[in-house]
């Protein structure tokens, strides 16, 4: 589904990603772990097309398409979804209005009819319930005045609505208590399917107890230095990143 070959990317001339190779097959959940500053979030941002990052080398194929040739919104319509680490607020634009615009754009792209208001409302309420968000949040401005946890749940709710081919979670677990973590993991797990994959970017192993990955990668200094199964995440939890010869403080610098 997703093939990343020798990906190099930099921000304002500073290289961040230095030759990433990664292959995600349909139905797989991959976790990317690593210390702060290793390039985890950059990888997520480059995949969706954030313009602050310049791809200097390598290629990304998504369902056979050259992802790097597509605009941000084209990538989204092709089935790429990013649950942002820091979801932005859009004051005055209700969650409902935003979601309905997004969903109907996607449906139109797939040649489907737009959802009418009642069907949309029903769907939105159902998905909100799945992530424990009260329907009141639907009427509020996008992330406007939401707590950190509410913002993250809102991201997962959007993912449940959009049903992407590839869901990317960028440190969705950061700042969440254990109950919220479980809720979010449950949301993601209900979406797991043979034809849908996930890339879970996280600093900590605890999320991976709830979203169990098929493959775990360790990213350090812009490269994948180790790949394994879920056991690898456990070992990292136990021994820290130092065990792999990574000086965390230095990497973060």
């Amino acid at each position: 589904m997703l093939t990343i070959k020798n990906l190099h990317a930099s921000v304002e001339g500073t290289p961040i990603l230095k030759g990433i190779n990664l292959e995600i097959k349909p139905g797989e959940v991959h976790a990317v772990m690593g210390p702060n500053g290793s390039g985890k979030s950059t990888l997520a941002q480059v995949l969706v097309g954030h313009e602050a990052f310049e791809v200097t080398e390598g290629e990304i194929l998504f369902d056979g398409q050259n992802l790097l040739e597509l605009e941000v919104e084209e990538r989204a319509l092709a089935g790429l979804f990013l649950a942002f680490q820091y979801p932005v607020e859009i004051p005055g634009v209700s969650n409902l209005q935003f979601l309905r615009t997004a969903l109907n754009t996607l449906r139109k792209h797939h040649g489907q009819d737009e959802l009418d208001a009642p069907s949309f409302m029903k769907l939105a309420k159902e998905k909100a319930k799945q992530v424990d968000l009260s329907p009141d949040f639907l009427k509020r401005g996008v992330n406007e005045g939401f707590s950190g946890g509410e913002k993250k749940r809102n991201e997962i709710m959007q993912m449940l609505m959009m049903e992407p081919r590839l869901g990317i979670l960028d440190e969705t677990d950061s700042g969440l208590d254990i109950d919220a973590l479980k809720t979010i993991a449950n949301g993601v797990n209900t979406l797991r399917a043979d034809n849908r994959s996930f890339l879970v970017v996280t600093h900590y192993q605890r999320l991976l107890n709830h979203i169990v990955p098929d493959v775990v990668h360790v990213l350090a200094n812009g490269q994948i230095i180790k790949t394994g199964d879920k056991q690898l995440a456990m070992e990292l939890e136990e021994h820290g990143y130092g065990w792999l010869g990574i000086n965390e403080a230095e990497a973060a610098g």
Partner: protein
Amino acid sequence: MAESNKPEDFVKHEYEAGFVTDIESDTFEPGLNEDVIKRLSQIKGEPEWMLEWRLEAYRQFQEMTEPNWQKVNFEPVDLQSISYYSAPKKDSDKPQSLDEVDPELLRTYEKLGIPLHEQKALAGVAGAGTPAESEAESTGGGGAYSNVAVDAVFDSVSVVTTFKEKLAEAGVIFCSISEALQEHPELVKQYLGSVVPRGDNYFASLNSAVFSDGSFVYVPKGVKCPMELSTYFRINAENTGQFERTLIIADEGASVSYLEGCTAPQRDENQLHAAVVELVALDDAEIKYSTVQNWYPGDENGNGGIFNFVTKRGMARGKNSKISWTQVETGSAVTWKYPSCVLKGDNSVGEFYSVALTNNYQQADTGTKMIHLGKNTRSTIIAKGISAGHSDQSYRGLVKFQPTAEGARNFTQCDSLLIGDKCGAHTFPYIENKNSSATVEHEATTSKVSDEQMLFCRQRGIDPEQAVSMIVNGFCKEVFKELPMEFAVEAGKLLEVSLEGSVG
């Protein structure tokens, strides 16, 4: 991928009302002097006192100099180079019915989405944009102007006013001010200049001397006006100024909602629009005045466009009266306008809700004045400014509590939204408080349409133009909800058009 996907790249103004109507006009030679004023007054068959009033205004005007305290830059207008009267030629003196109106004019208004045929208006033709036949029964469904009486002002004259009979049944007078001077001179004489005196300011005095047409509304005691009233101003002729004068009076216990709209052809020269609007609300009366201003803003290099120098003021004269201004401003090259409320009656209420969008090289210095005179008077100001391109926008507001304004209150909120990094937004709030029991609250914010917001929307599959439009509409929400419902949709669309652009 496109080279850049900054929010500002998705903002481009496509002006859809920029066409010229090819029609024969009677136009004065350019120039301003007493003779011009006399001729103007004579053509309109005005009473003697009106001419004297104009001449006195002109005398005061000649003593004045053009103000320069606004934060705008433009070449001063050469008042001798413009014409002060231009009217479409016609056979009879004044068209009494639509059949006598030049079809070319009717087409002009239809093209602008303003139906002058009452039947069609009822059927909602304006909104649908297609001619509908015999649907007069299906009221209330259609376009924005479906249940609205319209006074259409073309250059210096009112072409036609719709639904006059229906309004007359309720006792409401709605006509051009020229007609009001003929039919109801006593009302005009009583109220004209009572809110904006002849010598008020440079452009208001000029207007008082040379105003050509505009609308007149009188809602009698206890009457709630049965439909929305609207005036549609169209500048067509070249090298002319438009000096309209609007006077709205709501008698005791009366209420009325009024909307004005404006457009002009696309031209390289600047054209002057210097209007005066006066509102008078007596005891327990309420006037809601909404503006959707879409004058030609000039091209993307800042050439041409309308100079919109306007004095608008409402007098909440009676106790418990209310004046509410709502404006959505997307047009004009230079705007200079401060719709104000004088809260004279005890417990009277003043409101100002504004959205101003400037793009390219547009400049706007706009805001409001709330003058609290009466006890327990209350005012609310919500001003939203959106600057894009190289435009520059200032909010300028005065909140003043006189010693008599016991227990008065004001709440002000000014929010600026910047799109791109070449535009400017400024806030100049003035507060003068001469009564210690008065309360005033002021909030101000400045924000940007951020790259992060854009990425967020686009990551959900929403294209960049729609994203900008959605973010801007969200920003304006508090003001749009104050517009008459039919027009809130129109206003949203207008912003969308003003933000239309291409990728990269």
